[in-house]
């Protein structure tokens, strides 16, 4: 099993979710996060004082998938999240040793 994590632009979340559903991924976890990569933040002005806000709002999306699906899921996310503009985000996957479905106690791939 692998954990696929993606940092994407917030407004692309619906597209990514639809694409994942079409691929057959049912269920994922999202959270609102802030950060920066090559895309820097923005400037705010309050009574003439300029503040540079470094962090840009992003959405982090996490989903555990079977080993065989991981590369495809990453591709689906990359394709559906891309705008071609700076700040589109990143997607990566990491190995997962163990997984338990809390309700039933199923372990491993059965819990996916």
């Amino acid at each position, binding site marked *: 099993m692998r954990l696929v994590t993606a940092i994407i632009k917030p407004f692309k979340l619906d597209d990514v979710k639809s694409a994942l559903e079409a691929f057959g991924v049912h269920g994922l976890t999202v959270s609102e996060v802030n950060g920066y990569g090559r895309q820097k933040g923005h400037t705010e*002005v309050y*009574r003439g004082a*300029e503040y540079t806000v470094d962090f840009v709002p992003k959405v982090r999306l996490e989903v555990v998938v079977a080993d065989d699906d991981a590369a495809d899921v990453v591709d689906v996310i990359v394709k559906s999240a891309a705008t071609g503009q700076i700040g589109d985000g990143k997607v990566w996957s990491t190995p997962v040793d163990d997984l338990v479905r809390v309700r039933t106690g199923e372990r491993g791939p059965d819990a996916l």
Partner: protein
Amino acid sequence: MHVDAGDTAWVLGSAALVLFMTPGLALFYGGMVRSKHVLAMMVQNLATIAVVSVVWAVLAYSLAFGPDAGGGFIGTLHLAGLAHPTAQVPGFNLSIPPLAFAAFQMMFAVITAALLTGAGADRMRFDGFLVFASVWVLVVYAPIAHWVFSPEGWLFKRGVLDFAGGNVVEIDSGASALALAFVLGRRRGWPRDVMAPHSLPLTVLGAGILWFGWFGFNAGSALAANGVAAQAFVSTQLAACTGLLGWLIVEKWRTGHATTLGAASGAVAGLVAITPAAGYVNAMAALLIGLLGGITGVLAVAVKFKFRYDDSLDVVGVHGACGVVGTLLLGLLAQSNVAGHGAGLHLLGEQALAVVVTIAWAFTLTFVIATVVQRTVGLRVSPEVELEGLDTAVHAESAYDFGNVRAGRIG
């Protein structure tokens, strides 16, 4: 004495409008601080209403408006405890009950003291500030109110004009705020760290309440329901509008953006500037005074960065600077048929004298009072408290609870 029903109704209503300005100020300021300090700012404003009203009734009203003790400097304690409530206020010829006047003026003292919370944002002790405010009303506010507002005051007798508190409220609070900022010192991290307003919607609502209340403040200062009140009402509206526009135009030109905070601040700057002049100038003069108030404000708020004093929410830049502009412009724009004095260099000189004396008195005495409170009760919180946030550290509350993860139990 003759009591007029219409006048009394208008002044009592105006007193309530002026009271409403202080909770409005709590929103105006509360929105401008960071979210961990917003309740502290608001409770300081609320408690100021309580403390100053009590001090006013017991002593300060008499010091300000009691019979002159000699030289036009201070009133006696003849009216302490709001005694002699049916006798005409010394020097005045009012058609309202003296208690209505005392109540109206009480709200002025409240809002003036409350303005000082803006200079001490994010780092001032609650108990220390309330002690400070109690003494400040007696030592700084009451004498200046006596000099300028009481017909027995020495500046009033010289012909100084202050319709609704350009000196007594605005310049007074601005100069006092500067001294308070010096005694308190800068917020930790200022000006390096981002200390952006946490909720401009609160600030906009607060500005709206201030604007609304200002009709009581200015038009109520006619102390009668008459043409002067109407003149002041119109002047107030027009100056708020040109103040807002003036601030935005300069801001757009200087930074490239017209901001929400700029619009709210500009309206207040225009209102401040028209305060000394409201009933004494015509509508077109009010447009000009408001415009220059707005322009002055947007330029004046930059000064603190140059001289590195942390007047956190710009009491000096908005109230002090725009109060001076309005007070001086009145010297050139007063209509003799309303003001009783013709505009000109003589009046301008008297207005300038009032500005200088008010600044000197307010700054010096505030510096002394704040220093004494700092060394006795304490006026600044510890670095740990400042870092954690005054809301949880001092008041054991937090303003916003958006999350549903709040592990804890009762007790």
